[in-house]
């Protein structure tokens, strides 16, 4: 579904990604794990076309993504749930969700999609008219996921959905991620919480300072002594 070949990204003189290649197949949950500064978020931001790569190619459903402007990716079916959630603070929960349907004209389907999110996260329904900035971290993460869902994506890019959340909430979020995947959305998950990520994912790639050093089915990666030592402890 998503193919990345030889991707090279630099911030000025610093090379963040040193020619990585990987693939996400339809229906999978693929996780990219790695420490701080390994280049995980950079990878997602490059796929979303927020950063221009120096080299390499990104194809989605056999279409070259590099010339597509960032705001058209949603139309192609890629939703990015950013690191740190980035909820629109001065807007209400409902407005946040509505904005994720930007450019769509089918009002009835939009209402259905919004209701689906509210069914999935009853807490958000309660807080429908509350401002985004008044939500707790967990609620904000739900809202961020909700925005991704409303976009009706074929592929969801999740950037650290567990960041800064209590363990119980992390379980909740991951339950939803599994459910979304079971309903047919492919997921590319970036995580520092390797435990959780390897538990839900089908396949995993381990990223270290811009290189992929390990790849394979998630349970095999989880058994790799290097990974256990570095990430699972």
């Amino acid at each position, binding site marked *: 579904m998503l193919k990345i070949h030889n991707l090279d990204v630099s911030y000025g003189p610093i090379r963040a990604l040193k020619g990585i290649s990987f693939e996400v197949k339809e229906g999978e949950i693929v996780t990219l794990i790695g420490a701080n500064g390994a280049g995980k978020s950079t990878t997602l931001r490059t796929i979303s076309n927020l950063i221009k790569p120096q080299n390499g190619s990104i194809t989605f459903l056999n279409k070259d993504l590099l010339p597509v402007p960032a705001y058209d990716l949603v139309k192609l079916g890629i939703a990015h749930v950013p690191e740190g959630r980035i909820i629109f603070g001065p807007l209400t929960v409902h407005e946040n969700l509505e*904005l*994720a349907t*930007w450019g769509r004209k089918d009002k009835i389907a939009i209402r259905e999609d919004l209701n689906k999110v509210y069914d999935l996260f009853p807490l958000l329904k309660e807080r429908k008219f509350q401002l985004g900035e008044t939500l707790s971290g967990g609620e904000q993460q739900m809202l961020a996921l909700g925005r991704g869902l409303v976009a009706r994506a074929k592929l969801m890019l999740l950037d650290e959905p567990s960041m800064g959340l209590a363990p119980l909430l992390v379980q909740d979020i991951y339950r939803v991620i599994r459910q979304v995947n079971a309903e047919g959305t492919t997921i590319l998950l970036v995580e520092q919480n390797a435990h959780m990520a390897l538990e839900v994912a089908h396949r995993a790639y381990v990223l270290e300072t811009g290189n992929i050093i390990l790849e394979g089915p998630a349970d095999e990666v989880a058994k790799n002594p290097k990974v256990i030592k570095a990430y699972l402890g």
Partner: protein
Amino acid sequence: MTKKQISSSVNKKMLAYDKLPNWKKYAFISAITLFFLALYISFFGIQAFFQQLVNGIQLGSIYALIALGYTMIYGIIRLINFAHGDLFMFGAYISCFLGNYLMAHNFRYPFIVVLIFSMVVTALLGMAIEKIAYKPLRFKPRLAALITALGVSLFLENFFALSPQNVPFPLNKIVFGPKYILFPALIAEKTYNIGGIAINNIKILIVIITIILMIALQYIVKKTMIGKAMRAVAFNKDACLMMGINIDKVISITFGIGISLAAASGTLYALTYGQLQSPYLGIWPGLKAFIAAVLGGIGNIPGAMLGSYVMGVSETFATSINSNFGYGIAFVILIVVLVFKPAGLLGKFTKEKV
């Protein structure tokens, strides 16, 4: 005393006013205002007071429409569009030319056609300026765009002030020339005398149009999809891109709306004074509206309205005492308010997160 202690003691003094409970602040400000108003009434009488109040509201409406554009554009891309006053001028000239044409052809409702036409044409010019001059600088340091805005402002003034005889063919049809021209009387002026206060239909019309445009703007920003997108873009551009919002389009529309308000203001201004002095006429209204926007808290739409009316009313009062006071009072009010409320009357003081 170390440096740190000195700076903290200065901060304490600065914050003394901030620490007052809200009602005391308002009482303080109201007391000062009432004192000056009472002084004015005792010198000039109650009738003069109401007359100036009416004139002030009219002037405030003209400032408010410009200030709203300033504040909208600042709110969304943190750019002070110094060319705003010149687009106000452009709007006034466009409505003058179209007005003359329509009057010559005995058109039935010239004013409303002129107003809408001038808003649309000026908005298009503004959007073009945004595309050419500001968009390439969007992710560059903010100062670059600010200087560019000053450049655009000077360019517009001086370009349109060229005399048609001095420029080659296609341009001589566009430039306005430096001389003053009369503005057509699109609406026959009628003066009503209400309890000794002269109110004419143009004043009433200006206030009504301003209120309609303000309500329309509030509706757009609060209720429509594009308004929600504007607020979202103001908050975080990357997140908007990730959600598929075309931020270029949103910013362009914001410019269009803000600048069409300036054009409406220019038309109303020209209608009030019946003449256009020169293509430099936008400088002062533009500056004062900018001050009004800062006074109300820049980036804040109700603040821009409040600031404009405060400015308009105090300017007319000051001018009625001595015609030289009018220009200075704007800055006096600005300084006084900013000393006590650095974020403006309705602005929230937000600390930058590091």
